[in-house]
């Protein structure tokens, strides 16, 4: 199942990140994952929030430049060695991962990883072949 990640353009200067979190805080948006890809001048902030649509509208209204990016969330066993077999399965299938980061959420011995990759169909079939499950929005409490 596809999860909507919000990607936000941020200038590399003090206070930029604080502005985003303040806007979200004031509107009761709960963040589930944060990742930043940065260069010397700017960065792209990637967010998974409980209500992506609402967050997007609020951020747009506050003048941020952003895009919605479809990503997948994979549940992996929350113990040593839990992630390695998943990544190995993707590597064997020759699938490129653009980026990956973790959700704050932990549940019943499971940790959650966000994946962005070049070939979604292949990604899903490789996971299925290795018995790895995609997390559902309900499971993560996302709208």
């Amino acid at each position: 199942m596809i999860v909507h990640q919000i990607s936000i353009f941020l200038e590399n200067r003090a206070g930029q990140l604080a502005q985003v979190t303040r806007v979200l805080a004031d509107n009761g948006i709960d963040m589930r994952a944060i990742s930043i890809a940065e260069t010397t001048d700017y960065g792209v902030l990637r967010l998974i929030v409980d209500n992506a649509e609402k967050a997007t509208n609020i951020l747009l209204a506050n003048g941020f430049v952003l895009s919605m990016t479809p990503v997948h969330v994979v549940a992996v066993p929350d113990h040593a060695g839990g992630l390695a077999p998943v990544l190995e399965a993707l590597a064997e299938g020759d699938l490129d991962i653009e980026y990956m980061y973790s959700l704050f959420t932990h549940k019943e011995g499971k940790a959650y990883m966000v994946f962005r990759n070049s070939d979604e169909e292949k990604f899903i079939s490789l996971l299925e072949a290795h018995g790895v499950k995609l997390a559902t929005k309900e499971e993560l409490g996302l709208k």
Partner: protein
Amino acid sequence: MPNYYQPEIETASHEQILAWQNERLIKQVQHVWDNVPYYRKKMEEKGVTPADIKSVDDLHKLPFVTKADLREAYPYGLMGKPLKDCVRIQSTSGTTGKRVVAFYTQHDIDLWEDCCARAIVAVGGTKEDVCQVSYGYGLFTGGPGLNGGSHKVGCLTIPTSSGNTERQIMFIRDLQSTILCCTPSYAAYLGETMKEMGLTPDQIPLKAGIFGAEAWSEEMRQDIQNTLGIKAYDIYGLTELSGPGVSFECSEQSGMHINEDHFIAEIIDPETGEVLPEGAKGELVFTAITKEAFPLLRYRTRDICTLSRKKCSCGRTHVKMSKPMGRSDDMLIIRGVNVFPSQIESVLINAGYPANYQIIVDRANHSDTLDVQVEMTPEMFTDNVGVIKKRQSGLEAGLRSMLGISAHVILVAPKSITRSEGKAVRVIDKRKI
């Protein structure tokens, strides 16, 4: 003991200079009327004929020549001589569409080199001197002009051209160069480098420097003089008029004597075009009265300065111009290259960026830096940093090919560039000049 290259000209009485100017102006206007249809048409439109120009007092009747005319008439439209009589071209550091190509007969080159020779002698140059010309050679007028002047004075000339700092310093030390000609920023850089090498001013054989082609401050002059242990002199010129040597500083180091036997200077109000009285601050306009191949009349330099006829202790009688205090257009001179904000704007728009941008010019390590801040837009934004970077470097490549110099593109948050009430503030020049 003052030195002159052509004492009878450089110290001539004002009446004598005026007599030369009157005679040459009348001749030059006729020459242009007969040979430059582009300018003749401008005169006809203004209802002026050569018969109306009887002396310098009538100069104001003539139409101006602007950079726009040079572009429109490019490349041959303002020539006063057939190509077969020309022996050289030089060109400005400008860019596509803005480049100026100037033509020279052998006579033009001779007079230009005389002007440069006057500048060299004014700083104490004689045939005993070793003159290192570290201006660029080639289309740029700096190298060829000072090279020719140095030959005329009889100096041993070292045509190092610009760059290769180690080699520059090697020649200065091994061949005991006494006069250095280059841009002031390069002189400062050479000075810093020699200082880092542990050389003290008394170990540097240089005694004088002729530095031009860009604006520089009194503070910078002091710096250069202290690190190199020399006297640093300013020189002014434009490719459109010949090159360096239109005016030059003397021992007083307080303004540049304009070679009035070749160039008539006026100061005008840049808004109305009206001629301003002596001493007033305004735009400098030149009429070249001896040039054959590229005879520009009333050429608007866009440089803002003042003129002074105050008696000079060096004995020269030619009028002095102040260092240019700014420009009456939005042209920037960055690393010696002419840059117009409109050029940057067109690159941005062609690449799909909005016209919300800011140009920040600064100095680092004695060299100009050019940053272009561009606001990120929803259209240009993507989650993929690699793609953003690629667009950013594409923009930088576009700017480099348009401007001829490199620029750093900085992507900034939307609406972060201050919107002004009236005219947009496009340029922030942080250079201390």
